[in-house]
């Protein structure tokens, strides 16, 4: 794929779709934060250490190469495109709805629960960690200040956090059982997934496109 194709996909497909879904602002902000930590080192390393070809500029003993810049741009473009697609999906699609659709297509409902609860683990852990840290702070442990001090405060947090989470498992399991989690027989859904004919046609189109791309690459590989 040429280096500019990723940017083209991002500019002509991902960003307009994000604008259409009214998530342009949050998506670009998050994408910027996501890509920047990769982009800067890639650009510096590839640009200055490529070692051959046309030199764009020199900085003291270091030369910045054109080929390195193109390679870095291609790498950053791929990261941006992948990140953009993922962010667009996560910002416009509720995970439980996505999983519900998969369950309707044969995925076990227990798998749905596992995936969705795993994604919601973070706020639970955060709340638990805050409770433990509050208790530790009340007993004189310093949890704020320099990075070193904060890092040291994490060590006594890990043990109680893991133990408390394990102890909660039993009550959580019972609470689920009380709500028929292991009930056998057909399950129903509170949420109705709307699947319009245009969505169905789009899906067929995407499947066809994906199959065509695979075949195209396969033929290209055979002819080589």
């Amino acid at each position, binding site marked *: 794929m040429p280096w500019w194709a990723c940017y083209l996909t991002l500019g002509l497909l991902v960003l307009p779709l994000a604008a259409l879904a009214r998530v342009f602002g949050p998506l670009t902000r998050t994408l910027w934060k996501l890509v920047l930590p990769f982009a800067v080192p890639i650009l510096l390393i590839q640009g200055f250490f490529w070692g051959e070809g046309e030199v764009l500029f020199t900085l003291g003993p270091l030369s910045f190469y054109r080929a390195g810049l193109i390679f870095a741009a291609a790498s950053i473009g791929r990261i941006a495109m992948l990140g953009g697609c993922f962010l667009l999906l996560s910002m416009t699609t509720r995970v439980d709805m996505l999983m519900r659709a998969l369950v309707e297509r044969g995925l076990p409902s227990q798998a749905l629960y596992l995936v969705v609860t795993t994604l919601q683990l973070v706020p639970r852990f955060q709340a638990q960690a805050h409770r433990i840290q509050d208790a530790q702070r009340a007993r004189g442990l310093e949890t704020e200040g320099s990075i070193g001090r904060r890092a040291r405060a994490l060590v006594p947090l890990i043990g109680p956090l893991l133990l408390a989470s394990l102890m*909660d498992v039993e009550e959580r399991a019972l609470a689920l059982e009380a709500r028929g989690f292991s009930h056998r027989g057909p399950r129903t859904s509170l949420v109705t997934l709307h699947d319009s004919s245009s969505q169905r046609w789009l899906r067929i189109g995407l499947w066809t496109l994906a199959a065509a791309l695979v075949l195209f690459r396969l033929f290209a590989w055979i002819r080589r």
Partner: protein
Amino acid sequence: MIEVEAVTFTYAGEASPALQQLDLKIGEGELWAVLGPTGAGKSTLCSLLAGFIPHFYRGALSGTVRVAGVDVPGSSLAVMSEHVGSVFQNPFNQVTGARYTVREEIGFGLENLGVPQPEMFDRIEHSLALTGLSELAERSPYALSGGQQQRLAIASILALRPRLMILDEPTSQLDPAGTGQVFTLLRALVSAGETTVLVAEQRLEWIARVADRCLVLQAGRKVSEGTPSEVLSSPELTAWGLCETRFSRAARASAAAGVTTLRHQLPHTLDQAVEYFQ
């Protein structure tokens, strides 16, 4: 509703039984409180009636346990969940984490039981209205206070229309406001004929206000049974490991000081105290 005959249960790996020769009969549409000190067997009794014993907690069980006409040891947890609803101590742990709004959280159990969608909507609205959560229906369950989360746990169980609702110290992690919300709700549910309630509790003043009957356990044995007034006025109350309410302590103190004479029925609620001292 509940028939327990000569039940003895010993947890696997334990030497002494958690429940011993327990007999109990509870009628439909009553609010029962199970009282007793820590280790008396309250939680074990709750687990037994919900079917968690012997299906989740293993051990040696003897005797007969029937709830809503269902033989508990002979029925799976899935079957028991159709008849008995359980609410636990920690409201945070009862949020499934698999749903994004209060409304969907209540629907979780209904989905598992395969309740048709139109009926689901009705049941959810009814549960929301009963528990006073209608205005919070579109909020995240994690954005609720402890008392609201416990009401959500109750609403989630209520939607399943259990014939018996068991609550194991549901207010132990709640503040006074949250505690009041839960007890007021339980009384309202029983008075409206929605369900039968059995609640294991330590807060005697609230029990005196809302319960129809009390069962006192000590070291796994039944030591008393009666109305809240009968049980809480018993001279053996402290010997059972329970503390008197502040109102009955005040009545004893005033009698000891010669201000009033000590009557058989001591006050246990504010209303009773007002009447008693007048």
